[in-house]
């Protein structure tokens, strides 16, 4: 040991590398943990050394250990050290370790921002690549925000490799920092047509991922993707695109029609199974979303089903599995097409592979019909017997129950059969689904009245064999069935054949070994059973038998009184006292049966799960108002018991009167109906008003159970579902014969017009064996509509639900890296503002102005017909409003010393950048010019056209006389004299906005262009061709882009000396300085760099890169503006424009 220590320190120069570590671990199989902890100690030593090579080696080993499950988060800082190594081989190791173990919660991650930025802009494409790859694993919202702009720039890198990576990482950036999506999207879209196939597929990838989450924002890209789909040969890209179309079609059905053809072609032609599978899936999705009015709809479905059949028949298990999986999707909408392949699916139930069997089971669920249910379940029952693993058997069991109970037992024609199936299922050993079977038994017994007698008989048999059931499966869930059995026998005890025997069975000592909650049900139902025995015996005039029963209870109940379960104990002692009392009365020969059974009068009806939620609040009831004065703290406990017994009082209030005459009954019924109508707690009963009384003996209201006489009411011993299958078949056969006879007779009467009716019976022909009245779940009267489809607020993709077509606002630009200089003179007010604040200050201001502008736009569009779009925008607007409202106080704090109680800043008047363009009797035009962010010589003119006539304006065309300097961008192939069509029509009173792009060569002077809007105005009288001349004014300000600038860079710019100077002065200004600045910012696209008292420096940049700096000073009633700009002409013109604005203030 000591020797090794010495050796270790000598060998420090030749530290263990990863290979040695791997070998070492393999050689220390017995004491691996010890060896590794030793290695970790060594690594810790290595990390303390100065040599970056040693550190990198250590980190490399740590990465391996992390994979083996060792926590290495303690080394996070060392990892960052290695990441910042200058040598690529080390840097790579650092980034690998970081991508394996960093996550959003890693606090040191913020230290990496600058390092990553450095690597991103590194001249070596490997540094950049490795940084990008690493980012995709550990990018945090902060990193995303800070680096978004850098990565966006990389999307236009000269190296395709970097472009590709940057495009891919942008996806992660969008997720973490949704605000970056809109500014980056145009560039991302460009990449769809990148010459490099790698970059192109990366862009497809990212956009597909984005679009799948929020498809509606990407509908406009559909034509582009359609082109890609028909031209691409890369299967992986095709899969992505096809998946995307699957998401788009539900929103745009026309797309679906267009898709079917290329997709079916692909299905026919492709050899790649993955692509085939994707196509089939998408075709299915498309067909689901299309309305069924498609002509070759069924052909496509048939094609899919056929292809899937081939897959399922394939010997490859994977294809079989996928075929079944896709089949289940078709099943939902086109069950008929799938049902014809029942043979194949049943065959799959016998497959060796459990996954395949489970998929086949899923399919069966949708394939059953009245006709096939029994056959399918029979098959499944056979599988239950054969099944080896419990998981699969449990799955089978749940599936059987699912299949039978689906849509309100729709497919069950014979409930006796179903009950016997359930009873058979109880014989399964080791199932965990006892409660499921129990729930079914209860549900069927309660809801299918006709079956109660049969169910009770079966349940009593189950109870009789209870010790058997309980002993063999004590530890697992099957004893839950006894819960249901006991309850059914108690509640419907009047149907019991041998009540005494059941009573005896329920009081057996072995019952005490059952779980507490089941015992409790036993005890409670013993009393019900006892009550009905007493009644029967008293009526029969056999008091001895009644006393015997009493005696039995008195003997056996004490064993429950001793139960450790509180519930059992409480109920048992309660009942014991009751029975003792009854005994006394019996001794005096007082009839007690009636009173006792009155305890359990009334019927329990199933209540819909959502019923309680849907009870409407009655008018005038304020649930939040105090009923009494708010209580003091102490007396809240007294109220609880009252509420607890409320329900029972309700129930006891309706005693079961055994022998009341008809009139009395009718009267009471009426009274109760009245009471119920006004009782808010009462949940309305099902349509049949009789059923509440059905258990009152001797009354004609008992629904007559019409059971086919051929079915024996009692099957000796436990029933066999097989028997019922046969019986049911016979019954159906008879039914058919009868029907046929009737038909024949009819036909004969009609003179035998039609021969050869199809021999197969359709589903509807099979009448159920029992006149089954399935009691539906009850809902309160005038139930409130449900409020579902709440989206998950935590979905990360929700934040990316962003309208991408809206023009980009200045405020949305990605933050650009700015250097913070500690020596820069700070205005005194800012001192206590945190540094971060400074960075975000400028965008805030812009955001506000942007808000103003967009509000104005909103007004302009108020009447727009595109309601949907508007809606969306308004929502966004609201969100933004909130944001800027929140931020505003901060800003004021930062710029001005706020005094307590100082008068509020005068509100900014609403501003609009839209200037009137022209107007005539038909249409009013306003416009705004914005420099383009992407192109250095383009401006976008947004024209709002407002129709204030009564005619419909259509075929609108804008033609402009180009000048040498300024030209309008026209669609390809059109000549200079052609107009550009306006892409919409304007109904009366509606306004809409159209955008036109102009290219400009020189921007130093303002430009004017003459133009004409021609249109056809159509009203009832006819259509007239009209036109409207206008002059577009491109001011110098419209070529400016609001660009933030930090004071530091600003100072440098002023010092550089290559700017020309000019100044203006305007008198007679009354507006506050704050508003003045806001106006300049808004109308001339400047941003405030710094403001001290009544002096402010402002900056802007033209689309061609001219810097413009302004120094605005406010005197008593005058404002002077000194400007510096890289172009003297431009500055002169700009200042004239500013002067104009100021003169209006």
């Amino acid at each position, binding site marked *: 040991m000591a020797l090794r220590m010495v050796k270790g320190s000598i060998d420090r120069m030749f530290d263990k590398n*990863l290979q040695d570590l*791997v070998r070492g671990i393999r050689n220390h199989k017995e004491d691996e943990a010890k060896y590794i902890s030793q290695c970790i100690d060594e690594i810790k030593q290595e990390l303390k050394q100065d040599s970056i090579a040693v550190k990198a080696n250590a980190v*490399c080993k740590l990465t*391996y250990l*992390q*994979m*083996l*499950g*060792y*926590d290495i*988060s303690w080394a996070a800082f060392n990892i960052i050290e290695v990441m910042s190594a200058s040598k*690529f*081989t080390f840097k*790579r*190791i650092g980034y*690998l370790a970081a*991508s*394996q*173990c960093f*996550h*959003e*919660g890693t606090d040191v991650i913020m230290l990496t921002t600058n390092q990553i930025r450095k690597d991103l802009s590194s001249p070596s494409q*490997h540094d950049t*690549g490795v940084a990008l*790859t690493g980012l*995709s*694993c550990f990018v945090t919202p902060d990193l995303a925000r800070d680096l978004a702009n850098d990565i966006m720039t990389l999307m236009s890198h000269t190296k395709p*490799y970097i472009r*590709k*990576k940057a495009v*891919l*990482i942008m996806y*992660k950036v969008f997720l973490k920092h949704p605000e970056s999506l809109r500014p980056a999207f145009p560039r991302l879209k460009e990449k769809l047509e990148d010459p490099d*196939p*790698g970059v192109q*597929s*990366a862009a497809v*990838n990212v956009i597909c*991922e984005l679009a*799948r989450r929020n498809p509606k924002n990407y509908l406009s890209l559909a034509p582009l993707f359609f082109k890609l789909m028909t031209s691409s040969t*890369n299967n*992986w890209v095709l*899969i992505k695109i096809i*998946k995307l179309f699957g998401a788009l079609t539900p929103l745009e059905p026309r797309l679906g029609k267009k898709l079917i053809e290329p997709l079916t072609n692909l299905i026919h032609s492709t050899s790649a*199974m*993955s692509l085939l*599978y*994707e196509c089939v*899936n998408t075709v299915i999705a498309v067909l689901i979303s299309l309305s069924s009015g498609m002509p070759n709809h069924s052909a496509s479905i048939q094609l899919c089903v056929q292809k899937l059949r081939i897959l399922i028949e394939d010997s490859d*298990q*994977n294809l079989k*599995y*996928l075929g079944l*999986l896709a089949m289940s999707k078709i099943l939902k909408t086109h069950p008929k097409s799938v049902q014809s392949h029942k043979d194949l699916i049943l065959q799959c139930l016998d497959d*060796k*592979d*459990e*996954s*395949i069997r*489970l998929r086949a089971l899923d399919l069966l669920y949708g394939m059953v019909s009245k006709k096939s249910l029994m056959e399918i379940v029979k098959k499944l029952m056979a599988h239950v017997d054969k099944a080896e693993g419990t998981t699969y058997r449990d799955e089978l069991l749940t599936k059987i129950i699912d299949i039978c109970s689906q849509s309100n037992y729709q497919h069950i024609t014979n409930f006796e059969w179903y009950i016997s199936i359930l009873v058979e299922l109880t014989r399964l050993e080791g199932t965990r689904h006892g409660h499921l079977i129990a729930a079914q038994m209860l549900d069927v017994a309660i809801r299918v009245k006709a079956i109660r007698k049969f169910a009770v008989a079966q349940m009593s048999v189950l109870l009789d064999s209870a010790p058997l059931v309980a002993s063999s499966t004590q530890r697992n869930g099957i004893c839950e069935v006894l819960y249901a059995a006991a309850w059914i026998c108690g509640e419907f005890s009047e149907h019991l054949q041998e009540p005494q025997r059941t009573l005896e069975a329920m009081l057996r000592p072995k019952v005490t070994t059952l779980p507490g909650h089941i015992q409790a049900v036993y005890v409670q139902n013993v009393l019900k059973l006892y009550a009905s025995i007493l009644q029967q015996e008293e009526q029969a005039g056999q008091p001895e038998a009644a006393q015997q029963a009493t005696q039995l209870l008195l003997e056996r109940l004490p064993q429950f009184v001793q139960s450790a379960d509180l519930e059992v104990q409480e109920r048992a002692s309660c009942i014991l006292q009751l029975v003792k009392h009854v005994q006394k009365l019996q001794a005096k020969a007082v009839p007690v049966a009636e009173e006792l059974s009155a305890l359990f009068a009334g019927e329990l009806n199933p209540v819909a799960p959502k019923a309680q939620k849907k009870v409407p609040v009655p008018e005038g009831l304020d649930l939040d108002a105090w009923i009494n004065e708010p209580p003091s703290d102490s007396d809240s406990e007294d109220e609880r018991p009252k509420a607890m017994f409320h329900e029972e009082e309700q129930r006891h209030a309706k005693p079961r009167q055994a022998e009341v005459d008809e009139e009395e009954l009718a009267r009471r019924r009426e009274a109760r109906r009245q009471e119920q109508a006004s009782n808010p707690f009462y949940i309305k009963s099902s349509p049949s008003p009789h059923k509440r009384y059905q258990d009152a003996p001797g009354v004609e209201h008992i629904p007559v159970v019409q059971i086919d006489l051929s079915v024996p009411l009692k099957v000796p011993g436990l029933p066999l579902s097989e028997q019922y299958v046969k019986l049911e078949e016979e019954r159906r056969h008879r039914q058919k014969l009868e029907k046929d006879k009737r038909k024949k007779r009819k036909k004969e009467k009609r003179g035998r017009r039609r021969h050869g009716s199809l021999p197969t019976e359709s589903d509807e022909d099979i009448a159920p064996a029992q006149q089954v009245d399935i009691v539906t779940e009850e809902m309160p009267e005038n139930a409130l509509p449900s409020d579902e489809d709440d989206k998950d607020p935590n979905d990360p993709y929700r934040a990316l639900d962003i309208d991408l077509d809206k023009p980009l606002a200045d405020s949305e630009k990605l933050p650009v890296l700015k250097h913070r200089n500690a020596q820069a003179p700070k205005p005194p007010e800012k001192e206590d503002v945190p540094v971060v604040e400074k960075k975000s200050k400028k965008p805030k201001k812009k955001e506000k102005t942007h808000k103003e502008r967009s509000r104005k736009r909103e007004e302009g569009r108020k009447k727009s017909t595109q309601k949907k779009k508007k809606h969306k925008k308004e929502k966004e607007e609201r969100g933004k409003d909130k944001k800027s409202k929140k931020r505003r106080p901060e800003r004021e704090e930062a710029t001005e010393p706020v005094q307590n109680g100082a008068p509020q800043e005068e509100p900014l008047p609403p501003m609009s950048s839209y200037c009137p363009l022209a107007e005539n009797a038909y249409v009013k035009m306003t416009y705004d010019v914005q420099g383009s962010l992407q192109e250095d010589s383009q401006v976008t003119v947004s024209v709002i056209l407002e129709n204030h006539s009564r005619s419909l304006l259509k075929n609108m065309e804008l033609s402009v006389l180009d000048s040498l300097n300024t030209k309008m961008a026209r669609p390809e192939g059109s000549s200079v004299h052609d107009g550009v069509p306006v892409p919409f029509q304007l109904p009366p009173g509606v306004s809409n906005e159209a955008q036109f792009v102009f290219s400009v060569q020189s921007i130093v002077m303002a430009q004017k262009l003459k133009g004409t809007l021609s249109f056809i105005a159509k009203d009832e009288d006819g259509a007239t061709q009209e036109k409207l001349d206008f002059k577009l004014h491109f001011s110098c300000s419209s070529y400016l882009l609001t660009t933030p600038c930090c004071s530091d860079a600003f100072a440098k710019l002023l010092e550089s000396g290559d700017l020309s100077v000019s100044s203006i002065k305007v008198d007679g200004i009354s507006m506050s300085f704050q508003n003045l600045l806001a106006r300049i910012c808004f109308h001339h696209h400047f941003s405030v760099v710094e403001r001290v008292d009544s002096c402010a420096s402002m900056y802007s940049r033209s689309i061609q890169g001219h810097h413009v700096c302004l120094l605005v000073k406010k005197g008593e009633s005058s404002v002077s503006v000194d400007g510096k700009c890289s172009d003297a002409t431009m500055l002169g013109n700009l200042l004239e424009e500013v002067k104009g604005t100021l003169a209006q203030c």
Partner: protein
Amino acid sequence: MIKFFLMVNKQGQTRLSKYYEHVEIHKRTLLETEVIKSCLSRSSDQCSFIEYKDFKLIYRQYAALFIVVGVNDTENEMAIYEFIHNFVEVLNEYFSRVSELDIMFNLDKVHMILDEMVLNGCIVETNRARILTPLLIIDKLSES
């Protein structure tokens, strides 16, 4: 979306793991054990897709090494299945007949290959040449 990519041998030892959503380190070992257990329990005549908790496992076996990919339900199972083979082919080309030891000793390289092919949990590159070019350049750089 791909949630994780694992290479595990028959003894249950992880040879490569990559998670595309953060998973606590102690949960990773647990998950890996369960995943390999469910893969090992399957015979060759069973399909390569396992429904596991709320996601799907797609696996392929190469000698004693299992490659297991966990995906959510929007992913095309067949595409992932084909992708695994594609990945192995790339490894084969790079290491010329890849073995388990190659993967252990060159963990970083395998990670780089995987990073070229899968990013953000999506398959992003399947072209063998485009995947290997950056690696080969880096190898040349470190040699010189």
